[in-house]
């Protein structure tokens, strides 16, 4: 069952088109990721889906209701965690949750039960009476998530939920998101951390207000790079890159990946390997043997957004 269907959503701010005719459909319980650079239109799309911004044109159906015609019905069924820190600093964790639960129309007994449940869910049961302003960033983010799911929404929108959170806590955060998805909640998430994208069932790559590619992580990788990449480790990656990319017309697309050269060859892999090996020897650049590696999401992103890896 499709819970979110966007139909040519468009948002213009004056002459600037922030989101340009975006359409997609998301299944119930799916984790759907928006990947893109800052300003690609991810947040604007999410804000239109949540009814925070009115689309210039187009519409979206959430849980069967149109966001432009029935914003109130839609709002009841979704949870939103904004990019900006959006809790009341002078209130405690429990007071913040009680407030949002009340605003979503929950009764007192429900509020009590749900507060305990979501705090358990995000692993903050011990922090319920702490004032939010003194909590560390990672904890605040989890409280914000708890606030967004307090009313058991069908769809949750998370706008850069892990920005500025250390990697270990990001892992925990994603465990919570996986749990939500398994329980049948549809999760929309924007990020610019490539490694996080692997948690998404499907992703949409956004650039300049459009979705340029959509699909599962595996399908994006295989459709962008049908063959594995050649990886060659070198001592002097900058010179190696210069030397090899001077001949890229004969070999294939070249990219730097840390201290490793990634090559997506046009020609047979073993031929490309020979050419590169010869080139590097000629310029006396020490290098290891070439190996075949699967493409990473970063390779995919760079290739699709910048036109080459």
């Amino acid at each position, binding site marked *: 069952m499709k819970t979110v269907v966007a139909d040519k959503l468009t948002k213009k701010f004056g002459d600037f088109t922030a989101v340009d005719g975006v359409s997609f459909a998301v299944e119930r319980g799916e984790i759907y990721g928006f990947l893109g650079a800052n300003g690609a239109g991810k947040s604007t799309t999410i804000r239109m889906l949540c009814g925070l911004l009115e689309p210039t044109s187009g519409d979206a159906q959430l849980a069967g209701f149109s966001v432009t015609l029935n914003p109130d019905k839609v709002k009841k069924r979704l949870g939103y965690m904004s990019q900006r820190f959006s*809790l009341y600093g002078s209130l405690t964790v429990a007071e913040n949750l009680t407030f949002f639960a009340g*605003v*979503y129309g929950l009764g007192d007994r429900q509020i009590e039960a749900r507060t305990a449940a979501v705090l358990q869910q995000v692993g903050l049961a011990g922090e319920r009476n702490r004032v939010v302003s003194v909590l560390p960033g990672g904890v605040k983010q989890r409280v914000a998530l708890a606030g967004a799911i307090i009313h058991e929404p069908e769809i949750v929108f998370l706008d850069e939920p892990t920005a500025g959170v250390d990697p270990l806590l990001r892992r925990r955060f994603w465990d919570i998101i996986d749990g939500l998805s398994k329980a049948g909640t549809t999760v929309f998430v924007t990020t610019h951390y490539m490694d996080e994208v692997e948690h998404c069932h499907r992703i949409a790559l956004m650039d300049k207000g459009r979705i340029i590619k959509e699909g599962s992580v595996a399908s994006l990788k295989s459709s962008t790079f049908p063959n594995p990449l050649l990886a060659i480790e070198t001592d002097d990656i900058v010179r190696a890159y210069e030397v090899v990319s001077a001949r890229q017309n004969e070999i294939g697309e070249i990219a730097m990946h840390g201290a490793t050269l990634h090559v997506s060859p046009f020609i047979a892999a073993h031929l490309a390997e020979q050419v590169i090996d010869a080139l590097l020897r000629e310029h006396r650049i020490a290098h290891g043997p070439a190996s075949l590696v699967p493409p990473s999401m970063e390779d995919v992103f760079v290739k699709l957004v910048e036109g080459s890896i």
Partner: protein
Amino acid sequence: MNNWRRVIPVCRKEFLHIVRDSRSLAVVVLAPVVMLVLYGYAVTFDIRRIDLGVVDRDNSSASRTLIRRFAGSGYFDVFGGDNSIEKNIEALRVNRVRLVMVIPPGFAKGLSRNRDARVQVLADGSDANTASVALGYAGAIVAEFSRRVSLAAANARGFDTRNIPRVEAVPRIWYNPDLASTNFIVPGLIAIIMMLIAALLTSLTVVREKERGTFEQLIATPIKPLELMIGKIIPYIVIGMADVAIIVAVGILWFRVPFRGDVLTLFVFALLFIFCALGLGLFISSIAQSQQTAVIGTLLVTMLPSVLLSGFVFPIDSMPWVVRLCTYVVPARYFLTVLRSVFLKAGVSIMTLHQEFLFLLFFGMLFLAISARKFKKTLG
């Protein structure tokens, strides 16, 4: 469909904000008292001890009697400077005196020959209010002096002056027999101070959420603007009413303004007025883009109109009709009338003040409705 249950969490949240921010709470409670005490002493319309310069060029028994009448009236302090006209005019110019009386040579001689005499009174018109009051006092003193001179002259001619008829106005001033200006300044100040404080209370509540980012979270929820506005206003009604109670107590206990009216009437009108002022603050908060704008806007919209167009200083009846029309949208106008009435007059009720009641109710509702309308539930 409004769901009034959603008002309660908003109330509770705003109340927690207020309680947690004890410094602002202290300011909100103390500011009105400080303002009332300060301005209560500063603003007075009682004009007494006016500095008077005298040029006595006659220097006769009659001229000295006239000067004594001025000095003895309590309204004038005779400036014991030079007797020269130049020095006295200089004193008028540098604000050393407000009024100069010149008694010409031959003043007494003229009177003794049964001719009219004249004294010149020069007034400093740059402060027109004091000047006109001072001239009034001076005129009355001179008229009384003149009457005695006339009677003496009639006596001298052998008339029996005991039965000469005269008409006298017998004033009885009700409600404020001493015409003590404190008794109507303090109630007026209460209206003005509460207008400012109450509007400031709510002026930050919406715009603060915009600045801190919680606004975005709030509009993603199904709460309706009107529910939010009502939820935000209720805790401040409690604070505002507490402020009114404190400031009225200071007026009665410190300034000794009599309170003859009915506490319930005051309570009802205070509630309406606070509601009205909070609504105005909320409206400003919904349209302001930053907290600074909201504060400046509130000061502008509340202070000057409340002081100038409420009837606090200038009688509304004397204003041109266009301006008089403008006074109807100044909530302080109604509360000022109510306060002056309930403080000084016994037996006023909501029925006698029904016009004020209806106008305050109307503007309160109006402000609330337009704030809810202006509070757009979308960004950008």
